[in-house]
Each structure stands twice: as structure tokens, then as C-alpha cells.
């Protein structure tokens, strides 16, 4: 296949524009519900099934339709996608899915779908958009898993469901700890992005001050 015909892959969604750690578009499920690896996995799969598929479908909604109606259509598609997602999650994770169900339900109005579809995904060719949106989902998954694994260890003394020690910090499962942890990880992510950017500037790969 000709290399020119391959869609461009932007890695913005992984770190530089990570929707949890950098732009904060979809934070509530991670802050509150991602207290174990399994819960993070459920949230990630739900996010993939609801948001990613909705973005792929919503891309076919013509832009000449007024913005008000387009927004309603996005939410409607996501709400329909919720139905198979909820059934699948309850079948795959019968014990845990009910504990995070509210945070799966609110994904129908997530900002990746409502904001990025308009500002970013509509402006790209379909293939490129599909990959780009998937990279955003991977970025979400990275944040969810890191938060889930750290909190599972601190709050329950477990890793991937296996007990390793007594819980070092039971408060790690609370909402306020979720805010602290995501805030600190956001700063770490920003530091890494700034470091990589400076390195690229020094190497002359990108122009200084360029966005």
C-alpha cells in the first residue's frame, strides 16, 4: 500500500491532549469510580463502546444540520449505544458493573463526544478521524488504568485483584483522594509533555514557540 494513502496518526490524545489528565473533559468516572483495575477496565470498555462508536456514527451527521439538532443527535446516539454496553458490562462483570453503573450512564453526555466531534473530528477525513478518536480512547484508558492500579494498591492492598499486603491507605478509594491523584498525575503528564517538547525544540524537530 502506498504510504501516502495511509491516514496520519496523531498521538495528541495520548498525552498532550489526554482527555482526563490534560484537558479534563471526562474526569468524573476516573475520579470517583476508578478505585480498582477491574473498575477502570469496565469504565474503559464502556467509554470505548459508548463514545468511540458514537463518534464514528455521528461523523455521518451532515454539518448543514443546525448545531442544536446535531448536539441532540450526538446525545441520542450515545444513549442508544448505552443499551448494548450496559447489557455487555452486566454480562461480563456481573458483580462490579452495578457499582459503577451511574458513571457508565453519564458517559452519554461526555465532552469528548459533544465538544471534540465539533472542534476536531469533523475536520478530518474519516479514516484519520477514526484513528485519532481511538488514540483519545487509549489516552483515557491509560489514565483510568494508572489511577485504578494505584488506588487498588493503596485502598485495598491488592494488585489486579490479588492481595499483596494490608491496605496502606484505605482513604484512597474516596472522592477527595481521586481529585488529589488525578491532579498530581495531570501535573506529571504536563511535566513529561513539556520535557518532550523542550527536547524536540532543542533537536530542531519543531520550531521554538510553535503550537
Amino acid at each position, binding site marked *: 500500500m502506498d504510504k501516502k494513502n495511509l491516514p496520519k496518526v496523531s498521538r495528541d490524545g495520548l498525552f498532550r491532549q489526554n482527555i482526563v489528565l490534560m484537558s479534563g473533559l471526562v474526569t468524573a468516572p476516573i475520579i470517583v469510580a476508578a478505585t480498582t483495575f477491574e473498575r477502570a477496565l469496565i469504565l474503559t470498555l464502556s467509554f470505548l463502546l459508548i463514545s468511540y462508536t458514537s463518534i464514528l456514527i455521528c461523523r455521518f451527521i451532515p454539518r448543514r444540520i443546525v448545531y442544536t439538532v446535531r448536539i441532540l443527535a450526538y446525545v441520542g446516539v450515545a444513549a442508544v449505544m448505552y443499551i448494548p454496553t450496559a447489557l455487555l458490562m452486566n454480562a461480563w462483570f456481573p458483580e462490579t458493573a452495578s457499582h459503577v453503573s451511574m458513571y457508565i450512564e*453519564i458517559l452519554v453526555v461526555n465532552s469528548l463526544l459533544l465538544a471534540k466531534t465539533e472542534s476536531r473530528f469533523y475536520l478530518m477525513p474519516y479514516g484519520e478521524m477514526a484513528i485519532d478518536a481511538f488514540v483519545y480512547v487509549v489516552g483515557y484508558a491509560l489514565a483510568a488504568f494508572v489511577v485504578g492500579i494505584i488506588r487498588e494498591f493503596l485502598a485495598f492492598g491488592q494488585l489486579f485483584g490479588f492481595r499483596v499486603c494490608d491496605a496502606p491507605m484505605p482513604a484512597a478509594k474516596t472522592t477527595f483522594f481521586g481529585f488529589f491523584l488525578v491532579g498530581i498525575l495531570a501535573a506529571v503528564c504536563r511535566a513529561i509533555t513539556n520535557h518532550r517538547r523542550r527536547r524536540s525544540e532543542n533537536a530542531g524537530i519543531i520550531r521554538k514557540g510553535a503550537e
Partner: protein
Amino acid sequence: MEVLARIVSVAMVSVFVQNAIFDRAFGSNVVIYASRKNSTVIGFTLGITAMTTIASIISFFVDSALLNTQFGWLFMPLIYAAIIGALYVLALFFFWKVFPKIFRRMRKYVHLAIFNCTVIGALFLNSNYGSDLPSYIGYGFGTGIGFFLACFLLNVAREKLDSDKIPRVFRGYPIMLVYIGVVSLAFYALAGYTADF
């Protein structure tokens, strides 16, 4: 009088004990956005409070009819989205006709004030914990006031959070989250418990 007392008591619970932002993190990104200016704090608060209150009243009747059916829970997001969508269109139409100047100003961010986790989350919490119409109204109204409280607390601290005393990598979004976490910890102490999520 009894009904009013019930509305006020449930509203107090949703403001201080189960605050949508500090206890559930619903709409934390919207709070950060809305707290930037006084005008957006007021605009978002009015929009969200009106939405959560009116949508809660409608959802009470929907919940009574559908929630007890076998697969009703599967369609709740769709139904709640339809309720919020209908209110969104009605609100836009109302402002377009009655207050065209305000309509032009709010058009840019009105969908952010309506289609967010705070509004739809209030409806889901109502369906889980609400029992009668006054409790639905109280919870919906209290969610909006709780959102205002969060916006206000963030708005007054914003200048200090953006100061040079804060390490550069923490300035902006990361320190906002840490700050919300500190306030959330205070609310946790006030409530004495947290929801099991």
C-alpha cells in the same frame, strides 16, 4: 408547609452532604470552566439550576412509570437525554424570542450548561434515592445550588491558584483538581461518610 420543609431539607443534603461536584465529581470540568468569570458563574448556575429542577420534576413522573419495569433502567439514559434535549430546545426558543440579546451571548456555551454530568447525574441520583415529588424537586434545586457553591469557591481562589507561588506544572487544571480535592475533604468531614462508588 410540610412539603416546603421537605424540599428545603433534601436541597440542603444535596448542597452540603451529597454535593454533585465535591462528592460525585459530576461536571468538575464544567465547574473549572464556569468559575473563570463572575458572569459565567451566574449564567451557568442559573442554567444548571433551572435544568436540574425542571428536569427532576419531569423525571419523577417518568421514573414512576418506567423504573419498576424489567428493562426500564436500560432506557433511562435515552429518556433523560430526551427530557434534557426537549428543555434545551425550549430554553433556546424562549431566549431567542423573548431575550434575543441574551440569546446571542449565551448561544456559545448554553449546551455546556445543559448537556453535562451535573444535570443528567442529578436525574440518575434522583431515580436512585428520590422517593416523592418534593424530594425530587429539592434534590434538583439543591444540585444547582451545590454547583454554584463549587463555582464560587473556585472563583474566589482562582487568583491564588494561578499565582507564581504555585509550581509551573501545577498551575491551572492540576492545582484546580487538588484544590477541589481539599474542599471535597472538608465536605467529607462535614458529611461524615461518602457514597460507595
